[in-house]
C-alpha cells in the first residue's frame, strides 16, 4: 500500500518546494535545484503508485490532485527556468504545495474496480488533457495575480509579462478544449450523446466560456489591466468544475460525481 507512505514522500517534497520558494529571490539556481529535487521526489512516489496500481493514477480525485501538484510544479520550474521569473517559481511551488498538503490531510478513497463506461481508450487522453490545462491555467492565474497585486513598476502594465500571460492562457485553453472534445467523443461512444448537460459538463462549459470572455476582451486592449481580473475569476470557476461539482446540491445526479 504505497498510499500509506505518502507522508514519507510528501513531507520532503513540501520541504524542498518551500525552501525553493524562499531562496528563489536571491539564489535562483539553488531554488531551481531544490524545486527540481522536490519534483523528482514526488515523481518517484507517483511512479511507484502507478506501478502498484497497474494503471495511470488518474481515477480518483485524490489521484488527480497528486498528478496536478506534480504537473503544476514541473510547469512552474520549466517556465521559471526559461523566463527567469523567480517569483513564478515561488508561486507555483506554493500552489503545488497547497494541493499536496490537502492530499496528505485527506487522501480520499481508494479506487474501486472500473465500471464498464469508464473502460475506454478515451479515458487517459481526456483526463490528461484536463490536468495539463488546469496546471497551465493555474500558472496563468499566478502570473495575473502577480501583475494585479504586486506590480513591478508602480501600477503600470509589465510589457513583458502581459503577452506571456496571454500565451499561457491560450496554451491552457487549447488543452481545455482538447479535454472537452475527447470527453464529448467518449460520451457519444458510451452513452449515445456527445453532450448531455450533466452538471460536470455544464461547469466545464462555464469554465471554457469564462476563458473565452477573457481571450476576446483582451483583443485590442493589450495594456488594459482590469481585464486581467477575469483570470482569477475564471480559475475559481475552474475549481468549481473540478473539485466543487460534488458539493453543489443541483449536481447530485451527475454521472461524474466520484469519490
Amino acid at each position: 500500500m504505497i498510499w500509506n507512505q505518502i507522508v514519507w514522500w510528501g513531507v520532503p517534497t513540501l520541504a524542498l518546494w518551500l525552501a525553493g520558494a524562499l531562496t528563489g529571490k536571491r539564489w535562483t539556481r539553488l531554488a531551481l535545484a531544490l524545486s527540481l529535487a522536490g519534483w523528482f521526489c514526488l515523481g518517484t512516489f507517483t511512479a511507484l503508485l502507478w506501478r502498484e496500481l497497474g494503471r495511470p493514477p488518474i481515477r480518483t480525485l485524490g489521484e488527480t490532485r497528486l498528478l496536478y501538484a506534480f504537473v503544476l510544479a514541473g510547469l512552474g520550474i520549466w517556465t521559471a527556468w526559461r523566463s527567469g521569473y523567480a517569483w513564478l517559481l515561488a508561486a507555483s511551488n506554493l500552489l503545488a504545495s497547497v494541493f499536496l498538503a490537502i492530499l496528505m490531510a485527506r487522501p480520499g478513497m481508494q479506487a474501486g474496480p472500473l465500471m464498464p463506461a469508464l473502460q475506454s481508450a478515451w479515458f487517459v487522453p481526456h483526463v490528461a488533457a484536463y490536468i495539463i490545462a488546469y496546471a497551465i491555467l493555474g500558472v496563468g492565474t499566478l502570473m495575473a495575480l502577480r501583475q494585479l497585486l504586486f506590480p513591478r513598476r508602480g501600477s503600470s502594465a509589465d510589457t513583458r509579462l502581459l503577452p506571456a500571460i496571454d500565451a499561457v492562457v491560450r496554451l491552457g485553453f487549447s488543452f481545455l478544449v482538447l479535454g472537452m472534445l475527447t470527453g464529448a467523443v467518449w460520451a457519444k461512444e458510451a452513452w449515445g450523446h456527445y453532450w448531455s448537460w450533466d452538471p460536470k459538463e455544464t461547469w466545464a462549459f462555464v469554465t471554457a466560456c469564462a476563458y473565452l470572455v477573457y481571450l476576446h476582451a483582451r483583443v485590442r486592449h493589450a495594456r488594459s489591466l482590469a481585464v486581467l481580473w477575469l483570470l482569477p475569476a475564471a480559475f475559481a470557476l475552474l475549481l468549481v468544475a473540478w473539485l466543487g461539482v460534488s458539493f453543489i446540491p443541483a449536481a447530485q445526479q451527475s454521472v461524474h460525481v466520484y469519490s
Partner: protein
Amino acid sequence: MKNAKPKRSLWTPPFGPAESCAFTVLLMLTGFALQLATGPFSFYLLSFPANLIVLFVLLAAGLPAGFRSQSAVCAWISGPAFAAGLLAGLLVLTIAMGSILQTPDPDKSAALMLRLGLNGVTTSWPCVLLFVCLLLVLPAACARRVRLQGWSALRFCLWHAGVFLSLAGAALGQADRQSYVMHVYEGKTESRVYAPDGTSLELPVAITLHDFDMEEHAPRLVLIDKKEGTPLPASRPEFVQIAPHAPTGRLGAWRIAVDTFLPRAVWAGNGEFKPMEKPGASPAVLVTAVHERTGETRRGWISSGNMGQFQHALELTDSIAMAVTPATPAQFTSDVTVAVKGAAPVRTAIRVNEPLRIGSWMIYQYGYDFQLGRYSDFSSFEIVSDPWLPMVYAGFALLALACLAQICRRRRLAGQHDSLSGDLL
C-alpha cells in the same frame, strides 16, 4: 468592457465594449420577457427542413456582414468586443444552469425564477437568443478576418468555424435526433421501441438477442467494524483485491491467504459454499487470516450475499470482522443479430463503449434485468439516429486542429524577447 470612455455617449459609432454590454443585457431582458410571455422554446419547431433553412439564413446574413467594410454596425458585430459581450451573457446563464437543478416544469404558477426558465436553461428564450446571435456573428467574424488577412486568417477560422459547426450542428440538429429504447428477450426478435414519452412505435431496425452476459469484477476483501458494518480504517479504508495472481495480502494486522475463490456459488448448508450457476448465486471466498503478532488463525467462508442469500463475514476479534464487497459489473455483452431495411443482417456483440453503427443508426447496450444480473433474460438497447452528427464532428475536427496548431506553435521566451506584439513564452 470596463474602459468605456465617459465622454462618449452610447450608440455613437464606432461601437465598442459599452454598446456590446448594453446589447447583451437588452437581448437577455428580451429573452426573459419572451419566456414569461410564452414559456420555454420548443426545439421541435426546428425539425427538418426548418433547421436547414435557419442554417442557411444565418450564413446568408452573417457572411456578407463580415465582408462589408463600410458599415459601423457590421464592423461592430463582427468584432471581438461584441463576441466578449455575448460570451459573458452565456457565462452568466450557464453559471445559473450549473447552480440550479435542471428539471423543466411547465407550472405557470411556479416561482418567478422558474418562470424565467432558469430551471431549463437550454430551452429558455435568453439562451436561444444568445445562440442565434453567436451563430450569426461567427460567420461574420470569419469573413471579416479573411477579408483583412487572407490566408493568415486560417488559424482564426479553424477556431471559429469549428465552434460554428459544433454549436450549429448541436443546436439545430437537436430536433432531428431520435433516441429510443428497445427491450429484447433472449431468443426473440424485436423491432418495437419506446420513445422518451413512453409511446411505442415500430422501427426499421430488428434485433435478435442470442445471449446476454455480464462479466463481474472479483470482489475485494475488507475489514469491517462489526457493530457499524463500516469499512476500516475509517479514514481511508483498505481493500485486498481477490485475483488469481495475488492469492495473499494484508489488512491491518492480519495476513490473508485466499484458499478458494468461487465466482458463483451458493451456501451448501454444511458450512461450505459450492459452485453453482443459477440466479441468486454470488461470489464466495474461503480465506485464512493469521494475526501477525499473536499468530491467531481464523479460517472461513466469506460472501457478500445478495437478495438470494445472506451475507457471510469472518469474525476476527470481538469488534472486527472480514467481509467482501459486492461484485460489481465489469462489462455487459449482448450477442445479437441486427437487421436494418436495405442492408444485410449483421451478427455481432454490443457492449458498453462498443456500440454498433448500422445504416443511419447507432445501437448502444442500455440495460438488463437488475434483479437477475448476468442471468437476465432480456437486454435493452438505446437506438439513436443523429443526422447532424457529421456536422458536429466536422466542427470537432477543426477545433482539434486549431488546438494542436496552437500547442505546437513555436514560442519565443519572455526572457529572450521583449515586445508587446511578439508571441511570448
